[in-house]
């Protein structure tokens, strides 16, 4: 149970596939236009419930409840060893072998 007043993320379909703009490419036309937005939950609810939230600017939005206290999970990704090669290469070209 997620309590009223908690900071949450919701998901809502804005346009169904058949409502999409005429100019969109075929692969995009097959899928809906989806919106994600965060705000304060207006009543106790479970994940997946259709809920109402008040956003940061005070707007009311409705959608399926996805997550409470939505977390930023972007990172620096997996290590890319090729980047070491570039650094070594340009130092070698400019300063010679001992400059690493």
């Amino acid at each position, binding site marked *: 149970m997620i309590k009223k007043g908690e900071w949450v993320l919701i998901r809502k379909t804005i346009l169904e596939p058949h409502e999409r703009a005429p100019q969109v490419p075929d692969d995009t036309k097959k899928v809906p236009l989806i919106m994600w937005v965060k705000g304060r939950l207006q009543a106790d609810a479970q994940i997946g419930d259709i809920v109402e939230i008040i956003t*940061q600017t005070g707007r009311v939005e409705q959608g399926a409840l996805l997550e409470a206290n939505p977390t*930023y999970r972007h990172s620096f990704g997996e290590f890319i060893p090729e980047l070491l090669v570039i650094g070594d290469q340009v130092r070698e070209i400019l300063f010679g072998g001992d400059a690493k």
Partner: protein
Amino acid sequence: MSLANDYASVMARKGEIMKKSVGIDYGEFESGSIAFDYKKMMQETSYTLEEMQKIQLDAHVGNTPIIELRNLTALARKCAKPGFGARIFIKDEAANPSGSFKARRAANAVYHAKKLGFKGVLTATSGNYGAAVASQAAMAGLKCIVVQECYDSKGVGQPEIIEKARKCEALGAEVVQLSVGPELFYKFLLLLEETGYFNASLYTPFGIAGVETLGYETSIQFREKYGKDPDAIICTNAGGGNLTGTARGLEKAGATSTVIGASVNLSGLHMASDTQFNKKSFTTGHTGFGIPFSTWPDRSDVPRSAARPLRYMDRYVTVTQGCVFYITETLASLEGLEKGPAGNTSLAAAFSIAQEMPDDRFLLVQETEYTGAGKHIQPQLSFARENGIKLFFGDPKDEIPGENLVLPSHPSLIKATDVDLNRLRKSLIKAALNSVSAPPTPEDIRFLAEETRTDESFVRAAIEELEA
């Protein structure tokens, strides 16, 4: 009575919503055919250079340092023939409050919104402009909504855009994120109607004029320190505002530097494709925006875009994604400067173009952007690998956007590739002719000559070619 909110009904209300949310009646500048009065629009709806400098100074924007990249210049000279290799400089726009030159555009837009009495500002952008508007709105005490195209339909997001969302939220903005598609504009219009906020578009006269300080300031800084203007300036080109504003500022300073646009080559990838969205490693500064916005600027979110790059561009080049990543790593390794990759698009081009110029010339890259989780070569390359993009060392000529990323096996392989400007000019003329039903008037011909930085005989010849 409530208004109909289906796609076609909302798009039909576009003109009315825009007029209310931008505070400009674009009709005043229209001729009724192709031509419109660009100069009058920029003069009557914008601020003077002095006013903008004051607005930006009050908002802690501008006066960013110019840094000479001595080691990168030395590396370029190792790849150039004797006597060649211009001195490369960057203007460190990452030093602005929100971490990019976009703070200049946002400072003006938010100042204007506040002056007109709006309670909030709304902007549609997946780029650095979102954080710039959020930052300026925070300072001005205005509410702010940023609408982003962020995820594919499976909910997988571009790491760079997710980071920009975090930054907007950190600065107090509401972020509305959407899956791929041009109907972002539809949701944007609905939000403008719902909130009554100011449309802090990237393409209004105040937004573009905000960048004029960058060009002007660059010229003054160079004259003070080196006694002359840079010989050439490279601007990363997407929507065209960066290049347009910078060139206008240079003009106001009386500088005659060559203005070069640079974009990452993403040819072959469709920008509105749900399945191709996460196959690219650059979400801005690329040809997917740069080419269409050059050849038809009025595709933007205002009726008449103030960003009209073909009016100001002397040359336009592309570079590959792999070359920009390589140069970003090189900037860190040789200059001790870690910056966001997208802002280094023009730096990759500069590395190549410097080699065409004698070693006593000055070449300026006029921006840098902040870097961090998501918005950095490491996560962007990692994301590419996760999406099946092959990453290897080789000749950048072999790069196919959406399939592979070729890191140059030697810096001498970094090459800026020229875009045929006459082809773009003809494409603009074609789009203009298609936008009206009547044949072009003499005024239209003059206008198109200005739009394409050519002359009336070029325009007439292009029209004849199209008719043939």
